[in-house]
């Protein structure tokens, strides 16, 4: 089944300058009882975004009106812990289309790629500079060019290239789905099973 295509994204950013943000913070377990993929964005970062009375925490960057955009920029080792794909659904449902960090947890990164959310790994120093630039100038726009694997901070024209395997890149650019691909291999899988026995 086709998904949204990702080619070029220009957007402002929301900074989250914390390390080791785990998927329990992204979407706490008590919101995992739903049986559909929709609506998780309301509870994205729930316990950081709202106090225990349900009022928005002013200190949290998602509640800061100066920070908007489709790109989340987060500290090192983002998405560790639980394999819950709900974390990616929540980030996507909230409106983000890319997450930038210097390091992602493996399962989270796979989950991103399977849902059209682009995880971009940039060097530590670049990330640090980007976070402080966004904090100084909240309207800073960035440009993500998936085809050329280039992340650019537009006002300064500072660029960095990022890695993505070419299969996943093609899937994202064309909005293709892994399952369609695997289903096309069913005969090959049946032969493999026979051989294995």
């Amino acid at each position, binding site marked *: *089944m086709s998904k949204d295509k990702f080619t070029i994204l220009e957007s402002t950013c929301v900074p989250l*300058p*914390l*390390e*080791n943000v*785990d998927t*329990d*913070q992204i979407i*706490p*377990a*008590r919101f*995992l*009882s*739903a*049986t*559909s*993929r929709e609506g998780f964005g309301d509870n994205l970062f729930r*316990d950081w975004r709202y106090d*225990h009375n349900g009022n928005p925490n002013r200190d949290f960057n998602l509640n800061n009106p100066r920070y908007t955009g489709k790109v989340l920029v987060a*500290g*090192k*080792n983002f998405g*560790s*812990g*639980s*394999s*819950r*794909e*709900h974390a*990616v659904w929540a980030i996507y449902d909230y409106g983000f289309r890319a997450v930038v960090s210097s*390091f*992602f*947890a*493996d*399962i989270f990164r*796979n*989950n991103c790629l*399977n*849902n059209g959310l682009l995880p971009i790994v940039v060097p530590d120093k670049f990330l*640090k500079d980007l976070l402080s630039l966004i904090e100084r100038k909240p309207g800073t726009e960035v440009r993500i060019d998936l085809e050329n694997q280039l992340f650019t901070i537009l006002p300064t024209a500072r660029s960095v290239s990022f890695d993505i*395997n*070419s*299969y*996943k890149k093609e899937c994202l650019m064309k909005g293709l789905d*892994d*399952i369609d*691909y*695997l*289903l096309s*291999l*069913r005969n*090959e*899988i049946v032969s*493999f*099973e026979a051989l*294995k026995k």
Partner: protein
Amino acid sequence: MEPKTLFDKIWDSHVVRSIEYGPDVLFIDQHYIHEVTSPQAFNGLKERGIQVFRPERTLATADHNIPTINQHLPISDELSRKQVEKLAENCRTHGIELFGLNHPKNGIVHVIGPELGYTRPGMTIVCGDSHTSTHGAFGAIAFGIGTSEVEMVLATQCILQPKPKKMRIKVNGTLQKGVTAKDVIMYIISQLSTGGATGYFVEYSGTAITSMSMEARMTVCNMSIEMGARGGLIAPDEVTYRYLKALPEIAETFDWAPLILNWRELNSDPGAVFDRELEFNADHIKPMITFGTNPGMGIAIDDAIPTLDDIDGERSTSFMKSLDYMGFVPGMKLLGHPVGYVFLGSCTNGRIQDLRAFAQLVRGRKKAPGVTALIVPGSKLVEQQAIKEGLVEILEKAGFELRQPGCSSCLAMNEDKIPAGQYAVSTSNRNFEGRQGPGARTLLASPLTAAAAAVTGVITDPRELID
């Protein structure tokens, strides 16, 4: 022939096809599913109008979102009830075996898979749960996946997966009195940090590992993900074969001799190359406890929390945020700190050996006043065994009661929540903010350390309470 690692041997024999500059198409021998991460995958199959490809390679249980008392009553939370019902409906539709709530084989997915003999050496195993690494204890490649990947496996019995790098961690030496498998893995994670093994699949070896029981090996492999590893595995040996042959569920199912002959090939060849190798000495490992909000923030129980001088500048914000959440300060000692809750259970430490260790320490003692203890067996079989061995009687005499099986307070999806601000010594695997309930403060530790806290009401070195 070029020497191969154990991991390569299993992985390579399951590759259906390799995509150039892309992931491998990996065949999956055993797929475990549960109520929380599967419904959206089944919805996907429905939208495509397809059935589960190999239902006989799929096993389902309800564990994450179920109560651990009064399991015979309908689940009171409506969303949770519907989710558990949805699993049953999906299993019926697709002909998948379900050990659901109240089934005599029900339990935590990573406890029942091994104890019922579904997990065996040389297999590839996945589940929509990061602690799937547990099954690596049998010499299997087992790792956690997301729901899109659950759908892939349901649809084709295959998954698209880039091959990870390989790391070997050797632990030689002898564990000291009061030091358990939980302390070993918590020590390793404290050395590597919470992301230190990301991108790697870990093979554990060395005398301290090979002298462990299967239950202890599962505890070690279980927490591989807590240092970021895709999974962890241990080469099968006599301990593994003995364990499997003794399982009543499969004892008569297999012709063991030829199977074991094949399994003897499942080890890393001399000279096999790992991307990274580490070695630790078990003699130096003490009972461990965490002080922060990720499993890498662990110390020996008699040590002090690091000071800011020990933390490099860029990490100090996250470090202080973590300590603020826990109500601790840099440099403080944890011994003697009051504890209101104790949790024994989870896929890390909810097996019979863990209940035995806890019971051994509390035997002849009394639960400290003011401590609330949640003692949760990992499965119905563990529960039955604990009754049979008289562990429940020991626990009850000491003022504890056994709940019914489930994931319970490990992730607190059900009512088993630790109240905000309270400290809990927990045998589970994650001390993230709010993991055991909003505002809850988790201190990860072994079953012995949990028992020591339960009878004293404060953080206590278990070595002081055992002979």
